[in-house]
């Protein structure tokens, strides 16, 4: 089956920032994203778990598939939101079906 090159960007970020991040992504020309729940994790700012959260904000993972040429615009947009906050950004090479969608 015909597949097309794409980038898969995965951003782990605090839940209260989710809307700001996805708005920034959409503005940068992204056509879609998927938000996954996160149970817990650990990083520079320490360990946390969803059940141990006060106010239960926690974190989410936003996954975004895009055409490779759009990566830089996306990262710039994401970075304005992510930079000062708790979270990480990773990118993998991917293939997608139905390239016209991305």
């Amino acid at each position, binding site marked *: 089956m015909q597949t097309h090159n794409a980038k898969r960007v995965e951003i782990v970020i605090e839940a209260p920032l989710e809307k*700001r991040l996805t708005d920034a992504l959409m503005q940068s020309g992204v056509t879609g994203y998927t938000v996954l729940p996160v149970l817990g994790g650990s990083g520079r700012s320490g360990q946390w778990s*969803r059940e141990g*959260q*006060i106010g*239960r*904000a*926690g974190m989410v993972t936003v996954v975004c598939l895009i055409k490779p040429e759009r990566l830089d615009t996306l990262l710039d947009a994401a970075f304005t939101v992510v930079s000062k906050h708790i979270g990480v950004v990773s990118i993998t090479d991917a293939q997608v079906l139905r390239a016209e969608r991305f």
Partner: protein
Amino acid sequence: MNEIFSLAGANLLSPIILSFALGVGAALARSDLAIPEAVAKGMSIYLLFAIGFKGGVAVSSHGVDATMILSLFAGLVLSFGLPLLAFSLLRIMTGMTNTDAAAVAAHYGSISIVTFVAGTSILEGRMIESEGYLVAVAAVMEAPAILSALWLVARGGGGKRMEPELLREIMLNGSIVLLVGAFVIGALTGEKGLAEISPFIVTPFKGVLCLFLLDMGLIAGRGLRNIRGVLGAGAIGFAILMPLLGSIIGLGAGLLVGLSLGGVVLLMVLSASASYIAVPAAMRVALPEANPAIYLTLSLGVTFPFNLTLGIPLYLAMAQVAMGV
């Protein structure tokens, strides 16, 4: 003084407080006991709806009067003002950065609705009446403290300005909307509405509160486990001193406004309590540089248990002395 301790003692033996203690103990012992997030959120929705509704019903049978308007105004002033006091204390007592101190200050100007509910519960147990509209005062006090904190940072050169989107989010925070909304529904439907749903929102209320406090205890206990790394003695001292000062200011405000004994106590409880739901979420957006471990541990790990066990009985005794009843 004796009376305070005997009241505190009686208080400590209520299922509500013991459930909280059970949670703290389980967390400190690193048990895997946990309340699912969705259930905890469901219980907090239940509590907000019930407390708001009952407050509204009380107002519907009592009517709007000058004291009510004054109380709402007092709540506004307290929520705007208390962060300034908290901030000054923090600068004196601790070595926190400006931003951390401002973030903590926001929490202490705002309120903890669960502490408020526990206060109501203790008053009911002692047959002391209070004004139903204090629920509305609680709602009014949730958000202004956040603005004060942002102003404190901006003034310090933090270059913070309030995005309008953030302001909207803060004002339309789910818990504020639910509390105020249920209050309005209670006010509109009155005793008749209450009769329809009281087997849901009144009779089982205390039991739900037990399980909810069990969960709060678990969270507070997990926070306490990490207290050493995060907090010094100065910060912990602040988390005890600030509610005491807050309660005294609340006492003054309550007397000025002319509330009943129960009303004065609840205003003291509101002033003494610190937020751990609405404000932390707002801080992550508005002051991301502030360390959440600091403000959450102080608010939920120290001040909340203090108020729940010693604080509330103390505030009641203080109000009784001050009002000569």
